[in-house]
C-alpha cells in the first residue's frame, strides 16, 4: 500500500488525466477529482464544465485577478478561458443529463463490481446531499470513479454497495492508487496495476470479484 495519502491521490489524478482527448468536455467532482486538472498532459486541451454554469473553466485566479462572480461547483474562485461560456443551471443539467459531457470524475464512499455507486449519504451519520452527482453519473457518457483503494484499511470496492446508491450500473472505470478497473458486462476487470503493487495485494484489498485482464498493463502515472 502507499502510505502517503497525498502521493496516492496524485497517482490517481495523474492516471485519470491520461484518459482524455483534446476537445472533450469533462466535469470533475469536488475533492480528489479536482486534482485531475493539474495533470492534463501537455498538448491535450480538455474542456472543463462546471455544473454551476460554466464551460471552459480555468485555474484558480492569479492574485489580484479574483472575481467573486466566477466560482466552481465547490464555491471556490476560478477563472474562465477565452473559449468559455456561462449558462443557467437548467442548461447546465441539460448538458449533463443529455449526454453532452464526455467524462465525469467523481469520488465514492463505495463502488461495486456492478458499476453501482454510493457517494452521497451515510444514514444517521453524514448527509451532505447528492448535489449534482446523481445527474452526472447517469448523464455523462463515461463515469470514472477516483478513490483511494481502501479507507481506514477497509476496501472501497465491493461486491455490492451497502450504503444508499447514487446510481445503479453507471460506472465505467475505477481508478485507485493501486489499480485501474473497467466495469464490463462480464464483471469487473483489472486492466492496470501500479508497478509497486501486486495482484495479491489488490485481491487482499478489494472486496469485489474481478477478473485479471489478459492485456493487464502497468499503470502509467
Amino acid at each position: 500500500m502507499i502510505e502517503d495519502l497525498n502521493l496516492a491521490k496524485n497517482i490517481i489524478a495523474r492516471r485519470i488525466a491520461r484518459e482524455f482527448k483534446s476537445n472533450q468536455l469533462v466535469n470533475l467532482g469536488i475533492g480528489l477529482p479536482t486534482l485531475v486538472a493539474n495533470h492534463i498532459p501537455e498538448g491535450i486541451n480538455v474542456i472543463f464544465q462546471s455544473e454551476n454554469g460554466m464551460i471552459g473553466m480555468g485555474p484558480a485566479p492569479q492574485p489580484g485577478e479574483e472575481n467573486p462572480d466566477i466560482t466552481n461547483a465547490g464555491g471556490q474562485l476560478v477563472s474562465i478561458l477565452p473559449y468559455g461560456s456561462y449558462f443557467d443551471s437548467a442548461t447546465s443539467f441539460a448538458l449533463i443529463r443529455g449526454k453532452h459531457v464526455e467524462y465525469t470524475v467523481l469520488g465514492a464512499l463505495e463502488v461495486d463490481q456492478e458499476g453501482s455507486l454510493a457517494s452521497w449519504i451515510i444514514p444517521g451519520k453524514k448527509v451532505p446531499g447528492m448535489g449534482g452527482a446523481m445527474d452526472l453519473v447517469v448523464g455523462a457518457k463515461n463515469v470514472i470513479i477516483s478513490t483511494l483503494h481502501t479507507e481506514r484499511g477497509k476496501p472501497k470496492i465491493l461486491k455490492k454497495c451497502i450504503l444508499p446508491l447514487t446510481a445503479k450500473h453507471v460506472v465505467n472505470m475505477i481508478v485507485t492508487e493501486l489499480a485501474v478497473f473497467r466495469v464490463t458486462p462480464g464483471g469487473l476487470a483489472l486492466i492496470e496495476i501500479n508497478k509497486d503493487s501486486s495482484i495479491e495485494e489488490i485481491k487482499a484489498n478489494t472486496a469485489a470479484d474481478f477478473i485479471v485482464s489478459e492485456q493487464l498493463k502497468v499503470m502509467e502515472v
Partner: protein
Amino acid sequence: MFHKIISRKDFADLVKDDMTIMIGGFMACGTPETLIDVILEKGVKNLTIISNDTGFVDKGLGRLVAAKQVSRVIVSHIGTNPETGKQMVEGTLKVDLVPQGTLVERIRCAGAGLGGVLTPIGVGTMVEEGKQKITVEGIDYLLELPLRAELALIGGSIVDKAGNVVYNATTRNFNPIMAMAADTVVVEASKLVEIGEIQAELVMTPAPLIDHIFVPEKSR
C-alpha cells in the same frame, strides 16, 4: 412607465411567517445577500426555502437556517452548512434532498406551465420513493412534479429600471429559472442602469417577470 423600485421597508412587508421562498444562488454565488439581511432583521419564522444548497452559516441563505427562521429546505446539498445537518438531526428542520438537475427542472416546470417531467435520475435509488415510475420505450423514468414558491429572491448583476436582468458569470445558476416560478419576484440589483443600456440579446430575465427591484445602499 415602470415603477418597480422597492424600499427596504416595503420589501420587509412582503415577507411573512410560513412563506415558501425560492432564493437564487449556488454556494452563495449569485445570492441576494441584502434581501436576506432584511429577512433576518424582520425575524419571520417557519419559512420553507427552495434553493440549490443551504450556503454557509455566515453567508447566503444559510444565515436564515442558523437564525432558526427556517422549518424546511428543499435543496440538493447541505454539506457546507453544519447548522442544517444539526437542526435536521435535532428534528427542528425538515430537509428534502433533490438531485440538482431534477431540482432545477422541477422549478422550470412550475414556471413553464408543465405538469412534470420524466427523468432517469434517481431510478434505483432512495430518490424514487413515493414517485410514479413511467416506462417509455423500455427505459424507466421518474415523474418529477413542479415546484413553485410564493416569493422568489433573485440576485441580479445588472438590472435596468424596467426590470431586465443580466447575471454575470456563474451568478446566473438558478436565478433566471426561479424568476419564472413564483407569485412575486424581487431582484436585488448589484448595479442599476437606465432602460436601453442592456443589449436585448443579453437579457437573461425579461422585465415583465420582475415585480420589484431592490437596490441595496452599497449599489447606489
